[in-house]
């Protein structure tokens, strides 16, 4: 085994860290957002829904380009963050997290939204007639009954973050230990014609993605079989 094919685990580790942090924050953000989209009567919520769904159809480089402009200290938002909060989002790990949150948001929100919408409307009303607040209803009744959606949303947003490349390249570049995630590492190895190492990273990501999809399918299969809705 020569030096060129020795695998550096750091990019894989960084990918896992980025995906885990993104998934946890998206759970906290996605639940209230999907709840609002499912139950609000405001007409303009369809516009918000479209904005959340944009990363699914937009080329990642387009999204990355605009995020780069927004996060750049030369821009108003980036300058504000840098001056008042001492936060720099370009070429840093926090910047990757911020970009990933936007990029993977629909993969969390859409399954949760579908879950809320599939619940019979009178479950929420029944809970209210039993004297319960909307918060109690959400945690005691609604969320336990969309468990499959919670798991699907978490797994998909995690996997989607692992797989991102275009956005990461635009925002983070390839700083080892900081922003060089697994997908970027593959690209770097290909550029330096080190195909065996690129292949190792690629095989690991391929196996990982397959396992994720298998897991999602098993969960959906299980819940469809044991669906407990009356």
């Amino acid at each position, binding site marked *: 085994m020569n030096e060129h094919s020795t695998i550096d685990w750091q990019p894989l580790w960084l990918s896992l860290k980025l995906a885990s942090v993104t998934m946890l924050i998206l759970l906290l953000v996605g639940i209230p957002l999907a709840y609002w989209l499912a139950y609000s009567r405001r007409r303009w919520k369809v516009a918000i829904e479209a904005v959340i769904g944009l990363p699914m159809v937009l080329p990642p480089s387009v999204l990355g380009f605009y995020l780069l402009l927004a996060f750049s200290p030369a821009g108003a938002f980036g300058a504000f963050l840098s001056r008042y909060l001492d936060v720099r989002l370009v070429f840093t790990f926090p910047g990757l997290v911020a970009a990933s949150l936007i990029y993977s948001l629909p993969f969390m929100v859409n399954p949760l939204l579908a879950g809320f919408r599939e619940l*019979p409307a*009178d*479950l929420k*009303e*029944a*809970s*209210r*007639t*039993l*004297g*319960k*607040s909307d918060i109690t209803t959400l945690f*005691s*009744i609604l969320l*336990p*009954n969309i468990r499959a959606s919670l798991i699907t949303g978490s797994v998909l947003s995690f996997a989607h973050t692992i797989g991102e490349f275009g956005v990461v390249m635009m925002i983070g570049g390839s700083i080892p230990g900081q922003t060089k995630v697994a997908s970027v590492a593959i690209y770097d190895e290909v550029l330096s014609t080190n195909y065996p190492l690129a292949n190792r990273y690629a095989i690991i990501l391929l196996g990982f993605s397959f396992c994720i999809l298998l897991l999602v399918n098993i969960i959906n299969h299980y819940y469809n079989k044991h*669906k*407990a*809705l*009356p």
Partner: protein
Amino acid sequence: MTQSTAFLDFQATKMLHTAQGRELLDISFRLDQGRILAIYGPSGAGKTTLLRILAGLTEAGSGHIRVGDDTWLDTTRHIHLPTRRRAIGFVFQDFALFPNLTVRQQLEYASPEKHDSSIIAELLALMELEALQHHRPALLSGGQQQRVALARAIARRPSLLLLDEPLSALDEEMRNKLQEYILKIQQRFHLTTILVSHYLPEILRLADTAIILKKGRIVSEGTPASLFAGQTPPQKNNSSFKTTGTILRIEPSANAFIVSVRCADTIIDLTLSAAEATALNLNQTVSVIFNAINPKIIP
């Protein structure tokens, strides 16, 4: 329904959007404590809307609701108590049981006193649900789910029990059994109850008083027996339908008699006053005349 010290005082208007177009619901009534009021009428008459306005699930255009000493709604004073602060037990048409909770957990969730399990034990016993208390709703039959929905509504300790066609999803035999449970609950808890139903035997058996709704308005009110029995048959009515059959059964019900007539290959249950029923005999051949709400038997 007395005028001065009624327990429930209801008056509301609401624009209904029905298949026939827009109708204005405009209803007022009073109800004494511990009584069962039945609301009867064709679909689209506003029966369920009335219940939902009482529960605060649908907003009234204008009106007031007073229950005991509490004001739940008064549009002139901008009072609109949210649903969760109205002491109601609401039994939904399709039961609305929580799929993630067991029978016992549904009652515990509803009970305002978390640590007082005596009412829950009593309800489980009264509704014969003890053996099923650790089951989830998906494993229960329609009739069992209905009993859980009823027990859950009582566990909330309501001052008003609202039943939205609670037995419509069940078959004939199950309906009769569940009427027994509703009467048991009523005897034990003396709850002021409003029952939406389009099934006359149920109303005659359960209700003390009834209202007939049509196009959002009360067209008549009184005791069920006076509203649904003892009226003269329609003489010349183009909307009526006549058939013949033989009498299979004559059974007393709470305020009237249920007469089962075999017509061709179906059995029709009719509700008659005592005077009408005693004039009939088993196996007698009779004519049955139906009109909109009031079927009649002519010997």
